[in-house]
Every structure is written in structure tokens, then in C-alpha cells.
């Protein structure tokens, strides 16, 4: 094995050392590879099972053992080559397309798998491409939006470096509103059966055990019933500059919602999407002045609603289920292509139990949702509303009809 590592110019002299350092390298990436001693051991076993002289088999074997989700799987090849063969570049997909069936410089046949529709549409509207998109249709959104227009079409990347503080003022009211929002959702019952003192189905196993003591007569029946389904929430907060006046209050509401219910996931986006649930959890631990730091491009920049909702569906689609209520809090002033937003919302709509759009501008006099983004979104919304006070926020799910 050591000759193999030497031949290939690997960083360390033996395979085990290389694997341990590679595992450490992967753990430090943003994809947070979950690799412990067991995985390193499995990697060694995996390498014994494949042909060590065949680089692609080695890479593939390590990938199978060390990756545990799609996000990791997508970056693994690059990380592998960066670590083991920094001098050799992987051939880009574009250059491969011109030589179908050929071999790339790593020896792998250049047959490329096709993309999912969501990947394809996202590529078609990548920032470079949709940077040239027209913005004409929003001309009719006149005086009411004038102060916001400047911020709205800012394509700057944001890159918020300051800490975002979660206001403590009126937090109690927000907590009450969050409790109200969670408790008024009625999802019906699960298909699972649980033991209960009263129910609709006989629990045979327990009944029979009890019957043994009464000579086989089931005098004391045990029951089962379907437990209540508990709703999940995904709160997607537009943290762009045009939402500056509202985002602090909405972030406070998201914080309160997370404090009141564990089945809440919170995302923030500006030019990029970020899952901030963990950050809110950490902020909760601070008794005074909870803050969120390093929100980067998910706060304070331009607005890319469609692209970020599509990323939400692509990367975190598993969180959007039949028992999930998705709440998007945004002013809808998007500079992206409407077809991306249309596709993203359609996907979210089909996956979720309800889709709510909370638009703070709706309470502004003279505002009509004529902007391209809102026109695109309206057919998919189960509720479109404004809410500026804790009381109104608490009623977001009041008498909400769920689709699943």
C-alpha cells in the first residue's frame, strides 16, 4: 500500500496516515463531513475491496464510505483531488460535453449524468445569466415603492459582517403570538397507531396478556388510536436591504417561534440562503441581548427570492413535508427571473401542507401586488397577508385550510 501512495505522490507515506489526515480535512469543510474512527476503519476495508491501482475505484470507494448526504457527495470529488492530487485538475463538465465517450485526464469515462429539472433551471438562471434579465415590468410599481426601489435592485452581494441583534422589546408578546400560531394548526391524525386509554382499535397484544389472568376472557381490553399529527414550520425570512424596516421584528418572531416549538426551521436569505436555526438556538442560550453573527450574504444585500427558494427546495427539500407549513416573509421585490420563482414555488407548494406569504408592504396604502414576483407567486399561496403586530403574526395560521 505504501508503494501505491508513493507512486501517486500522496501527502503522507502510508495509506492510513493519508486517510486520517484526509478525514480531518473533510471534517473542516463547510459540508461538515461526519467522519469518525469507524468511517476511517471502513475506508481502509473499502480500499482493500477495490483495485488500488485504479484511481477512480479508490475515489469512489472513499466517497461511498465518507459521504452521507447529497451536499457532501457533490463536493467530494473536488476535495479528493485537491487533497491527494493537487497538481491534477478535474476536467470541467463543459469540456467533456464536446468529447462524448472519451476519457478525462483522471482516466474516467466522461459520461455525464443528466441534471434534475431544478438543477437545470437554476443553472439556466445562474447569477451571470440572470444578471442580464430585464427589469422592465416593475415600472408600474410607482410612488409607494419609490424609497425601496433603490435598495431593491441592488445586486450587491450583501456580506453582512456586523452582528444582528434580536430585540428583547415585546419578546413576551412575540412568544405568545408564536404559541398561538403553533397551537391553532389542526393537522388531523397520523396513520400510526399508538397505545391509548381510549381508542378505536383493540390492542391485541396487551389485551391478550391481560386475558391470561382472567382465563382467556378479554375482560380488560387495551386500545390503540391514531396520534395527532404535529405541524412543522419553515420560516423563510428575506433579510435584504429593502426589508430593513421589517426584518428585525420578523427575526424576533422567528426567534420566538423557535423558542416555542422544536419543529421549526428558520432560513434567511438576501443574495444567498442560509439556515439559521442553529444560530437562533445558540442565541437563545445568551440570557441578554441574543445576537446572530456571520450571516454573510443571507442578510443586508440585494434580493434573489426565486433562486433562494429553489435552493431551499433543492438543498433542504427533505424538510418540506406534508405536515410542513412554509412561511415566506418578504416584500416580493425580486430582481430575479420570474420563471425561477414560479418553478421554486410550485415545488414548495406541492411538497408542503400550506404556503403563506407574509408581505409587510401589503398594509401600505396604495400597494397592490403587481410586481412581477408577487404576480407569479399569488396562484401558489394559501394565504397572502401582512402582519405588523405580534397579535397579527399570531393569527397567520388562524383557520388556515391545509392541503394535506
Amino acid at each position, binding site marked *: 500500500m505504501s508503494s501505491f501512495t508513493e507512486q501517486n505522490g500522496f501527502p503522507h507515506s502510508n495509506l492510513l496516515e493519508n486517510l486520517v489526515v484526509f478525514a480531518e480535512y473533510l471534517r473542516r469543510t463547510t459540508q461538515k463531513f*461526519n467522519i469518525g474512527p*469507524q*468511517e476511517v476503519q*471502513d475506508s481502509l*476495508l*473499502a480500499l*482493500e*475491496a*477495490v*483495485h488500488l491501482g*485504479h484511481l*477512480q*475505484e479508490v475515489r*469512489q*470507494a472513499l*466517497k*461511498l*464510505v465518507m*459521504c*452521507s*448526504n*447529497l451536499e*457532501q*457527495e*457533490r463536493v467530494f470529488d473536488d476535495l479528493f483531488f485537491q487533497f491527494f492530487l493537487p497538481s491534477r485538475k478535474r476536467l470541467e463538465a463543459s469540456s467533456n460535453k464536446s468529447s*462524448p*465517450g472519451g476519457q478525462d485526464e483522471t482516466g*474516467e469515462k466522461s*459520461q*455525464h*449524468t*443528466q*441534471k*434534475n*429539472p*431544478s438543477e*437545470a*433551471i437554476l443553472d439556466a438562471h445562474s447569477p451571470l445569466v440572470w444578471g442580464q434579465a430585464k427589469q422592465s415590468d416593475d415600472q408600474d410599481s410607482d410612488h409607494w415603492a419609490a424609497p425601496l426601489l433603490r435598495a431593491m435592485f441592488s445586486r450587491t452581494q450583501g456580506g453582512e459582517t456586523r452582528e444582528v441583534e434580536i430585540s428583547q422589546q415585546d419578546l413576551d408578546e412575540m412568544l405568545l403570538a408564536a404559541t398561538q400560531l403553533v397551537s391553532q394548526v389542526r393537522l388531523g391524525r*397520523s*396513520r*400510526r*397507531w399508538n397505545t391509548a386509554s381510549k381508542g378505536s382499535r383493540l390492542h*391485541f*397484544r396487551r389485551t*391478550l396478556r391481560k*386475558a*391470561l*389472568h382472567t*382465563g*382467556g376472557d378479554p375482560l380488560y381490553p387495551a386500545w390503540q388510536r391514531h396520534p395527532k399529527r404535529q405541524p412543522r414550520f419553515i420560516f423563510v425570512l428575506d433579510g435584504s436591504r429593502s426589508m430593513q424596516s421589517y426584518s428585525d421584528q420578523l427575526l424576533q418572531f422567528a426567534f420566538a417561534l423557535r423558542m416555542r416549538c422544536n419543529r421549526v426551521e428558520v432560513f434567511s436569505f438576501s443574495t444567498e440562503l442560509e439556515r439559521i436555526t442553529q444560530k437562533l438556538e445558540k442565541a437563545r442560550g445568551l440570557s441578554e441581548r441574543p445576537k446572530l453573527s456571520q450571516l454573510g450574504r443571507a442578510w443586508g444585500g440585494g434580493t434573489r427570492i426565486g433562486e433562494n427558494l429553489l435552493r431551499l427546495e433543492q438543498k*433542504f*427539500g*427533505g*424538510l418540506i*413535508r406534508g405536515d410542513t407549513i412554509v412561511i415566506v416573509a418578504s416584500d416580493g421585490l425580486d430582481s430575479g427571473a420570474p*420563471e425561477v420563482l414560479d*418553478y421554486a414555488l*410550485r415545488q414548495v407548494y*406541492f*411538497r408542503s401542507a400550506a404556503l403563506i406569504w407574509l408581505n409587510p408592504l401589503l398594509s401600505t396604502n396604495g400597494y397592490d401586488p403587481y410586481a412581477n414576483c408577487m404576480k407569479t407567486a399569488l396562484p401558489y399561496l394559501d394565504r397572502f397577508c401582512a402582519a405588523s403586530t405580534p397579535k397579527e403574526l399570531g393569527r397567520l395560521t388562524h383557520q388556515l385550510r391545509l392541503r394535506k
Partner: protein
Amino acid sequence: MSKAAAIPPQLDTVEGIQTVLRQRNYIADLPMATALRLVMALQKPLLVEGPAGVGKTQVAKTLAEVLDTRLIRLQCYEGLDTAQALYEWNYPKQMLHIRLTENSGESVAQREAEIFSEGYLLRRPLLEAISQDRPPVLLIDEIDRTDEEFEAFLLEILAEFQVTIPELGTLKARHRPYVILTSNRSRELSDALRRRCLYLWQNYPSFEKEVEIIQAKLPGINERLAQKIAAVVAHLRELPLNKAPGVAESLDWAEALVSLHKESLDAGALEQTWGVIIKDKDDLALVEAHKARIAELVV
């Protein structure tokens, strides 16, 4: 528990696996063949994620064929519990036994031991899989459809290959089954489950691979027709469809065209057979809008 039963020597290498699977008309690329090699070598479960219709389930079926062993399938759904997945006691038989032995003079403890013995046990797929004399292929299909409780319950089985039945004690697997789990990512699976598995993402195949698959499954098909089918399907997958056609749809479509005696694709054949690959009203409308481009591909 014996760890591994004899595996045919040709399955000892990745290339050998590709060849053997090809003989069974399953075209496995390098990632899939390596995954199967590791499933056999490491005796670890394999979690295959990917869009619907890319051959995730088929790989388990083919592996069972190749290993000449039993395929035991557990189809997951919301509300699936241990009674349907693992075991259940045969209650009517137990009740009958209690009645018949009412006057036998046996103590409660004796009668309890009798009715909770293996003769009264109904084995469900998971228990069945660990009780085989020859390691079977256990397919846990669409694991993302179950709830978290069931996923947590699976952890013991996937890690230790043993099952604890309170009345009987712990039953250990005679042979470790080859476990393949599939998921369409309709919900996020737990890290605990993922860590116990090898992970493979299976996407739609490349154009070349899809042509190969069609030709392998339908040996008599005209090569040009197979290429056109693959080209149209590849184009459709790039459209923002609600239900993108998978390999299963390509094969159905190819079969439909062959059975309609179509030697080539033309506008008429497309009109006749859209329903085989497009299964959503909105998608049909979208495809109508892209008719011109599809017609170019057909020509």
C-alpha cells in the same frame, strides 16, 4: 453469526460486478458497481438516494438474482410500525390455544410460555431477513416515507443485525443480509441512519448509458430509435416538469413504441404515446410549448 456467505468469484472485482450485472441486463456504472462491491465486502447497508425511476429498486432485485438468493422487500409508508415490519403474534391462534387449554391444569406461566413461542410468531420482512439460512437481499424501499420513530427502530437492526422480542429474547442474524435502502428525499433522514450506511446518489443516466439501458432491456430495438428516445427524454428532463420522466418511463416508452411497430419516432408517434412518459396535466402543457424543439430532436 457467519459474516459472509460464499460470494461468486466474479463478484470480487468492480469490473466483474459490472460484467455480471450487464449479463442480467442491468447497466451499472462505476459508482454503482463499487457500491455493490462494498456492500458485499464490508457487509454494510447501502443507502441509495435519487429521483424516482432511476433504477434504485431494480438494483436490489438484480443483486438478488446475481447472488441467487431471496429478495425480501419492505415497502415503507407513513404509519409503518414494528408489527408490520418485524413481527406480530398470531392472536387468533393464541386465543384458540388459551381456550383449548383452559381445563388442562397448566399454570398461567406455562400457558404464557406456550403462546409466546416461535410457533405463534408471524414473521414480517425484517425478521424474515435475519432468519434465513442463506443471506438474502433486504430491500427497504422508500425509507423516507416512514416516520422518525420507525427510522430510529431500524438503527438496531442495521447496526447489529439483531432483533429483541421481549417474550423470546434477542434473535441474532444467522447471516447478515445485504441491505439496500432507497429514498426519494421526500424528507431528510437522520444522521444516525446515514452513518450506518454507505451512501450513493443515483442521478438520471447519461445519454450514452440510457441508450445502453434501452438496448439491454429491449434487445430487438432499432438503435436509432433508442437514441431518439434517450435524446427526447434527456431534453424533457431539462424542462421544469413536475414529474420528470425516469429510466422506467424511457423503457416503458420504448416498449410501447416497439409494440406499436414504430421503427422511428415521428410527430404522430409522439402524439400517440405522450401519456407513457408525461403523467401530469401541467407538464403536458409545458411539453406542448416545447414541441418545436422536440420535433427537431426527432428528426
